[in-house]
């Protein structure tokens, strides 16, 4: 029997095979009507999702919460370590063990890399990584790929440029790895200081994935189908001066992309990377992308909690 999506945790996109990603995309499409409240579901009734957000989050946290509630479940948790016992000095291990006792699955965001992996090793309930420092953000990747698939009805052969902070921007690490499974043409556009880390390049090269690196957006903009823009991650910069030098390196505005056949995506929040004059154009996919977080995370929650039962 072919096993599809038997993961018990979602920590890194590297844990996924192409068929797992395709499976989640298919399930998400089936759940869109539930996500929009056009259909009713109580498949996760009685289940509780533990939300441990040690770092602030808007879209990721709310889309998990919305998804869980749309499936009939409920959520407990905190947003920001000030609101938890961590502010009193409790360690992560103890906090996680407590949440394990209260919940059927845990969603964790933290500013340190490897936290979700650490917690998944010490608790028995499923763990979902909602972003670990500059590490991975696998559920964002799944919704990014879902957005591309919904727009083009395929992923293969598309020309996709990842633009901006590729060093600290965790969404692009997961996304580059996942896109590598789909035979796309991939470009990495970043200032020299913020190039894709050696770990990601090593994994792509090992899998014989072709990619092009440049610091000049003009090298790729005429050929791309997808411009995936990321925020310069101020909070991960060692000093303010370095941040100021690079901030605003690539500004996407309507003038730049007018007449081209492409879409603009962004994991949001944006801080000046995409001008608001793109918002009301056909190029804007970033708000739709944010909505797709709900059906995609519903598909993950449904499967991961059911896999555990």
């Amino acid at each position, binding site marked *: 029997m072919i096993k599809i999506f038997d993961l018990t945790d979602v920590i*890194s996109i*590297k844990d996924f095979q192409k068929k797992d990603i395709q499976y989640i995309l298919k399930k998400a499409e089936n759940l869109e009507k539930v996500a929009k409240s056009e259909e009713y579901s109580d498949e996760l009734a009685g289940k509780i999702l533990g939300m441990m957000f040690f770092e602030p989050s808007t879209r990721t946290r709310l889309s998990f919460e919305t998804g869980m509630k749309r499936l009939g479940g409920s959520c407990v948790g905190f947003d920001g370590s000030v609101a938890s016992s961590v502010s009193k000095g409790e*360690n*992560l*291990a103890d906090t996680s063990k407590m949440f394990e006792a209260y919940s059927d699955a845990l969603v964790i965001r*933290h*500013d*340190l*890399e*490897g*936290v979700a*992996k*650490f917690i998944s090793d010490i608790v028995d309930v499923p763990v979902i990584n909602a972003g*670990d*420092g*500059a*590490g*991975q953000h696998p559920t964002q990747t799944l919704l990014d790929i879902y957005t591309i698939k919904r727009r083009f009805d395929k992923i293969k052969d598309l020309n996709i440029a990842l633009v901006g902070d590729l060093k600290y921007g965790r969404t692009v690490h997961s996304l580059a790895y996942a896109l590598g499974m789909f035979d796309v043409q991939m470009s990495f556009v970043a200032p020299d200081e913020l190039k894709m880390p*050696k*770990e990601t390049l*090593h994994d792509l090269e090992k899998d014989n994935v072709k990619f092009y690196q440049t610091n000049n957006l003009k090298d790729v903009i005429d050929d791309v189908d997808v411009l995936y823009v990321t925020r310069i991650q101020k909070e991960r910069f060692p000093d303010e001066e370095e941040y100021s030098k690079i901030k605003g390196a690539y500004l996407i505005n309507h003038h730049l992309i007018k007449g081209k056949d492409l879409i603009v995506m962004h994991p949001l929040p944006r801080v000046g990377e995409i001008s608001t004059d793109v918002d009301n154009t056909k190029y804007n996919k970033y708000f739709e992308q944010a909505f797709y977080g709900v059906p995609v995370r519903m598909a993950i929650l449904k499967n991961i909690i059911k896999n555990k039962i």
Partner: protein
Amino acid sequence: MKVEAIKNGTVIDHITSNKSLHVLKILGLPNEDTNVTIAMNVFSDEVGRKDIVKIENRELDSSELDQIALLAPEATINIIRDYEVIAKDKVRFTNELKSIINCTNPNCITNADEPIESRFHLLKTSPILLRCHYCERLIDVEEIDNQFY
């Protein structure tokens, strides 16, 4: 070169040249109770230059051998009892290494104040390349060496 034979203990031969002091460091040597003999940068027909360490009255356990493999992948271990070599083997890499070195990523959970030990997966042996189990940072041979200086 003449180095006195030991009655009981371990001889680590074919240590990468000039790495014997690092090997001693991971073995917690020298200490007040153990006789240790070191030969550094000696000529060998097989490997050119090498270091040799003789440790009296101590037989190394497997976790210690894992650590030596990281620094001196060509090393051979001879266990001596009553002046006889009773066991001889090369150090071997294990696929997973725990608590031997620290992750070089300062933002890795293993460097925080949590009940957690470092853990690495071996990706390549020549040259050595490790990946942190938690943050996925790659650690190369130079970064490993730097931790023993």
